[in-house]
């Protein structure tokens, strides 16, 4: 861990030039960098509270237009590849929830105007559960879920 800290420290001092350039070019604007992290939503222990914290509502409409690509069985719960895509129009955000994780809210992606509603990442799952993808479009929340079996839990708790 100390080598990681040293690397980050070194990177910080070396990158101060790059960061300065980044700020001046608007790559990392103060507003963006200090945007509030949705702490209550991410720390919520149930899905409804997480969604209310994030969106102000937990009303979901089931949709078959959302595709979740995830393994049926995840050998390693620490690294479960998840892709969410949809052919819906006007998608504002895509959110991933792991139903049985201690804190179900895993990630939320807010899309730019030209960004396709298709994101891929890797998540930790503590145990077999549904992975739920929530797509916000036209101010409404649509969702679908897929069960992922986990043989070795990945949250370390």
């Amino acid at each position, binding site marked *: *861990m100390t080598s*990681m800290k040293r*690397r*980050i420290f070194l*990177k*910080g001092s070396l*990158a101060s030039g*790059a*960061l300065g350039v*980044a700020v001046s*070019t*608007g*790559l*990392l604007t103060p507003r*963006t*960098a200090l*945007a509030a*992290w*949705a702490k209550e939503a*991410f720390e919520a222990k149930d899905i409804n509270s997480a969604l209310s914290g994030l969106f102000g509502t937990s009303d979901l409409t089931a949709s078959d237009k959302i595709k979740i690509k995830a393994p049926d069985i995840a050998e390693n719960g*620490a*690294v*479960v*590849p998840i892709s969410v895509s949809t052919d819906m129009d006007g998608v504002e955000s895509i959110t991933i929830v*792991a139903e049985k*994780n*201690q*804190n179900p*809210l*895993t*990630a*939320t*992606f*807010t*899309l*730019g105007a*030209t*960004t*396709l509603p*298709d*994101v*891929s*990442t*890797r*998540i*930790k*799952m503590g145990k077999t559960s549904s992975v739920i993808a929530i797509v916000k479009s036209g101010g409404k929340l649509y969702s679908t879920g897929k069960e992922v079996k986990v043989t070795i839990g*990945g*949250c*370390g*708790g």
Partner: protein
Amino acid sequence: MSSIKLRASTKDGITTVKTLISHPMETGSRKDAKTGEKIPAHFIQEVVCTHNGANVLTASWGPAISKNPYLSFSFKGGASGDKVGLSWVDNKGEKDTDETEIKEIK
């Protein structure tokens, strides 16, 4: 050395961005094997991706994103040589940023 590996390629009018970020993404639940103490939470909370300075993606992450996070997404447009940038900030206030040029795939 940046913690960010960033690639952006464009084909048929769609640019795909792939990134791999070096970061422990500690949940705060894991115990140190030797001391038995909980390793403090240390995870990326926000990721911002830009194309020629304009936001194309903002991601809010919790500690359940895997260690050494992988992220891939696409956007319409983007030409060879355009700049794609990625920045992250974690719960300790640590941050990093990187930039790459879009490569055209024939």
